[in-house]
């Protein structure tokens, strides 16, 4: 019996080697996915990961001068939490990732930057918009626009579209993304002659009626609350229940089906700035939209991760571009070696579905315009409003 067991164990060890046969590829390169799959930002992180996975399904290999390499995706869950993030980042380092993509949520990216830096590992931020992510972290790059830009765009839009005089801002206490974006919005809005009243709420808040009442009592004409989607859903449903008629503005985080779901059937007007619009007519974007919808509908698991429908979040398109940019970096470096990639990274460019990607000296993408979308609460969809730059017009 013992001998039989021993033979069985040896077989299980050896069989995988045999079944591989002759290797079809020159080797494997690991791309790490550093995204939240749970916690406050779990929904967005999953959508971003979907974009990366879809890109991987289209291009699962990369051709370097010494042969075709297979790309292996390793996903870790940073749980949207800055205290869990470092160990998730460390796991990617020890799994031998050549390059890392992520994260959704600036706080967790900032928390992991030192770990990637110490390992000499290049990270490409997908939708983390806080300046602190790349500032002082030479190996952290990003392909999206930044909060100083986004905040200014939103302030210009608030002034242009609604002609408001007073804005109310609501941010989660201690969240780098919320507080940072509100800060830039406030600066730009005040410079444009708006009055801004700001408040913050502690983590875990579910009762927002007091905040919304405040906004109404103070005579605010627009609410700016770039919170994570979990709080966003609460804010929208409670604003609707309290009969609030003030439009709500938010940043890229709110470009999510969670928001549409919460706003469905209410009178709440939601406007967001974002990276990508489904109705984009460029050839690349059209192909991406069609391909992704087919792919996401092919599996209930993907569909569930996308929030139960096939509406494309902007972060999904960015995730797609991030993976393709990483492939460009691998090709330019002509190896999966971390040091080689770090060397070529500054000069990598890519023409993506969200526009052209090139990096400045900080490692930030050069972008000068954002899409503005409004919620259509009857059709549960986004409608494209305009492309807005910094200039108020």
């Amino acid at each position, binding site marked *: 019996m013992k001998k039989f067991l021993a033979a069985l164990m040896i077989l299980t060890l050896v069989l995988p080697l045999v079944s591989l046969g002759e290797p079809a590829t020159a080797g494997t390169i690991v791309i790490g996915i550093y995204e939240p*799959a*749970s*916690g*406050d930002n*779990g*929904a967005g992180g*999953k959508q971003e990961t979907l974009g990366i996975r879809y890109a991987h399904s289209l291009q699962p290999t990369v051709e370097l001068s010494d042969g075709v390499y297979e790309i292996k995706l390793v996903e870790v869950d940073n*749980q949207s939490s800055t205290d869990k993030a470092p160990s998730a980042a460390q796991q990617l380092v020890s799994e031998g990732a050549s390059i890392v993509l992520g994260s959704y949520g600036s706080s967790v990216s900032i928390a992991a930057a030192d770990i990637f830096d110490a390992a000499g590992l290049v990270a490409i931020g997908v939708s983390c918009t806080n300046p602190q992510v790349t500032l002082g972290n030479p190996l952290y790059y990003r392909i999206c626009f930044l909060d100083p830009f986004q905040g200014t765009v939103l302030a210009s839009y608030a002034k242009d579209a609604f002609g408001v005089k007073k804005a109310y801002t609501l941010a989660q*206490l201690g969240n780098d993304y919320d507080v940072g974006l509100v800060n830039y919005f406030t600066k730009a809005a005040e410079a444009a002659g708006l009055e801004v009243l700001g*408040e*913050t*709420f*502690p983590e*875990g*808040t*579910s*009762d927002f*009626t*007091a*905040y919304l*009442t*405040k906004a109404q*009592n103070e005579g605010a004409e627009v609410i700016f609350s770039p919170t994570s*989607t*979990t709080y966003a*859903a*609460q804010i929208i*449903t*409670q604003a609707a*229940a*309290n*009969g609030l008629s003030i439009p709500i503005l938010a940043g890229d985080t709110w470009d999510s089906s*969670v928001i549409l*779901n*919460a706003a469905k059937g209410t009178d709440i007007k939601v406007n967001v700035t974002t990276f990508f619009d489904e109705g984009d007519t460029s050839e690349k974007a059209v192909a991406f939209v069609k391909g992704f919808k087919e792919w996401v509908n092919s599996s209930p698991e993907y569909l569930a991760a996308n929030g139960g429908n096939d509406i494309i979040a902007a972060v999904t398109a960015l995730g797609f571009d991030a993976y393709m940019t990483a492939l460009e970096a691998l090709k330019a470096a002509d190896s999966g070696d971390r040091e080689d990639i770090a060397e070529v990274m500054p000069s990598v460019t890519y023409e993506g579905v969200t526009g052209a990607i090139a990096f400045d000296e900080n490692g930030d993408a050069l972008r000068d315009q954002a899409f503005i979308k409004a919620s259509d609460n009857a059709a549960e969809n986004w409608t494209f409003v305009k492309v807005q730059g910094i200039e108020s017009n």
Partner: protein
Amino acid sequence: MGEFFRLNLPYLLGGISVGGQYALIAIGYTMVYGILRLINFAHGDIFTVAGFVMVYLSATMPLTVSLPLTVLITVVLGYLVERAAYRPLRDAPRMSIMISAIGVSYLLQNLMWYVTGGLAKQYPTIPFISGSVTIFSATTKMVTVITPFLTLALVVLLVRLIGGTKIGMAMRAVSKDFETARLMGIKIDRVISVTFVIGSFLAAVGSILYFTNYTAVTPTVGAMPGLKAFVAAVFGGIGSIPGAVIGAFIIGIAENIIKAVGLTTFSDAFTFALLIIVLVFRPTGLFGEAVNDKV
């Protein structure tokens, strides 16, 4: 005056509603404490589980089935927790049961992470109580208005149950003197089970009211209301049911007043500062000395 009233009514309504929900959870804490001298840390998580059970059940069943079934499953869960984690430790040092309670709390939380994948779930809309209602000039959900009345009705029922029935008498006896009650032939295990059943029932009702108002259910969402309900129970005098209810309303309203005056950041800090102040200056709470109300 009319203007002042119009502006501040929403704060007051919100405070009363939140207070009512804290009260329903606080009763569970205070009853278990009264009988077992145990702070049942898992109580807040039972409240959250009730939320998730409702989310999943309502996806496949009509409300007339899913609502009672949610309450039933929550009650069974409360009973099972007591049976599995507390009863075997009945004669162990009190600290062991306390640690077991913390263990159950984390176990439930992590099970919910595992089952739900950690994403927020949208609570189903319950007709009538999810509807909007306008009181004077303030618009709010129907549930905000119903909560305090339902809470008070349940408390009156509970007080009568404890004061006027045989099982209520047994509860009072057990809370007065555990050992003697046992010697006198009271089936302690049964009394304690009933206590947990009542506590979980109220947590389930509280959960329905709470999530109808605040519709996102996440695995950790019960932690904050649970902690605040605990503070309310201590504030009112732990072991006293009317104390817990009054404490909960005071905390709910005070929190909203603090937000109204613009100190939003400090609203949570206030609640926990209150806990420290009560423990330092009046450890028995508002009603702690009135032993005749003890369960």
